[in-house]
């Protein structure tokens, strides 16, 4: 089942001198539910811009993005915000935990924008998710008391606590050492798989990218599929 579809998506910005900078050009991408996709690219290749489009944060200059086969551009802003909160979970490179809040409070944050049971059981759900990422003993710790790996695990718990159908990880291991990064990625992959969420990892690390079932390279705004074609496999 197709969760996210990009059709000839382009994103350009106007520079102060009036010229136009094309960041993304003609992107076509289909992500199915439960799939793990990685996108690699050098700095300045447009990775973050693409992530913002995938996360319904930004709008394309041209082309279409369909979420659940519904064109995103036709969604009113507030509905897009709610859809983002319900269906998309973000894991950022710099963790972006709320300072001064405990791990539990950070994981509770997305649930404050939920309705029904998720809102009323928010604390219970947050604790369950933190226990699931191995931080049951760090519930009351604030970010400044957590290691980098622990902070990223809190961020993962926060991204997953609303059971999103799409997890967007922007350089999730960028601020971690190699071993911790690998452990965090295994955890992310495992939890995403168990919850049936699609996972899109944007990274410049080929090793992290290799953990995905489908890999793409973003170069000068163009997305290239790195899947070996059938003929190459046969050879």
């Amino acid at each position, binding site marked *: 089942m197709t969760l996210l579809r990009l059709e000839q998506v382009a994103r350009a910005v106007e520079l102060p001198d009036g010229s136009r900078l094309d960041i993304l050009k003609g992107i076509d991408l289909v992500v199915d539910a439960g799939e793990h996709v990685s996108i690699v690219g050098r700095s300045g290749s447009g990775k*973050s811009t693409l992530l*913002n489009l995938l*996360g319904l*944060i*930004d709008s394309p200059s041209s082309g279409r993005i369909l979420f659940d086969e519904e064109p995103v551009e036709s969604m009113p*802003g*507030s509905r897009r*915000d*709610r859809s*983002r*909160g*319900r269906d998309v979970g*973000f894991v*950022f490179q710099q963790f*972006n935990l*709320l*300072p*001064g*809040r405990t791990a539990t*409070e950070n994981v509770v*944050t*997305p649930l*404050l*924008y*939920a*309705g*029904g049971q998720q*809102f009323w059981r928010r604390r219970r759900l947050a604790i369950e998710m933190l226990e699931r990422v191995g931080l049951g003993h760090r519930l009351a710790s604030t970010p400044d008391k957590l290691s980098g790996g622990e902070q990223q695990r809190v961020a993962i718990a*926060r991204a997953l606590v*609303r059971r999103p159908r799409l997890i967007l990880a922007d350089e999730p291991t960028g601020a971690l050492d190699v071993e911790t990064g690998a452990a965090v990625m295994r955890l992310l992959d495992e939890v995403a798989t168990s919850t049936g969420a699609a996972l899109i990892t944007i990274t410049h690390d080929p090793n992290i990218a290799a953990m995905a079932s489908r890999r793409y390279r973003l170069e000068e705004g163009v997305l290239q599929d790195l899947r070996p074609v059938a003929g190459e496999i046969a050879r």
Partner: protein
Amino acid sequence: MNGFLGALIEAWAEFRVNKARVVLSLVGVGVAVLAMTAVVGVGQIATQAQIEQLEASSGRPATLYLSTPYNSVTGQSADAATVEPVVAALAERYGIQYVAASTWLNAEVQTPNGVEGGDGRGVDVPYGEMHRIALAEGHWFTAQDADRLLPAVIINDYLWQQLGAPSLTTHPTLTLRAGGTAQAVIIGVQPSTPYENYPRFFILNSAWQTIQPASAAMNGASNWEFWVPAGIADELTARIKSEVSAAIGDGWQVSVNRNDYLAWGSSDPLGPLRLVLLGVAGLVLLLGALGLVNISLVTVRQRIREIGIRRAFGATASRVFLAVMLESVVATVVAGAIGVVLAILLVRNDFVMQYIAPGVTDPPPFPAEAALVGFLAATAVGALAGLLPALIAVRVKVIDAIRY
């Protein structure tokens, strides 16, 4: 419902996490609300005190004042005995419950230090309530006091002290001289005003007549006061004048005027005081609000990343607006509540009450209006101070904010 509750939870969390900053920023608001509430409260109590003073001297609204009719041809004042039945008939006809004659009396009193001249006033029983007379000791006249063998008097505190402050339960007496000499029993003591260093007393008109029937020459002219509903005051003024004129015949000048403070000119005599107090209170609050807006603006700029994160996790623009507004409103309401409570404690303090409203007979409770004004002002300041930061927060671009 969930949205509002969620925003409230966020606001509380923000308050809790940044306690020190929030509390410091709210000190100004709390003090401003305290000042405003206290100023409004003090103003109202002081106003009440001033009203009571005005009512003590010239009667409660609406008091109609009938001067002793005067004959411009003979130069004589009408005899009280002539006017009294007319006044009684008027009171009966128009159902006026509060009517009192008052007469200035020239009398001397005996004290342990000798004989002193004193200001006496002959009054009727309703006079006490009509002029809000409060006593430090004893009680005001009742109808039974007219039947005493020894007339009852109410003296001022100065005279009471001169007499050695005798306990009223021992029925102390006062020796009066106005032509002849008479004894009167002291039944009450009225507090003296700050510069009242002379004897003063009240006595019932009827009692005065029994002890000094021949000393009319020692008395001033009688005047009559009618305490009537303000709505019919003008109509009654005209009727009293015409009916008294008709009863005592031609040649007499009859003057009936409304005498209470509300009749002094077309505007409220306390209006300027109220305006000044309100102006001061408003200024104080404005300063507090400006301080809060300043801090809120700086704070929201520091929180752009946090707002971006919240947007990324599903907070709508309206939700962010509500949360930032609520942070401000919740905090200022708390500060305002504390300010109001402190203002009540401050204003209701005995020392302060004595200073702002000495001798008030009906000390008003802390004006609910002042507490409400303080509370609403705090809420309004919170909303206004939160508005600008909230608008800035809504305009935050999620992408830029997360990278901020």
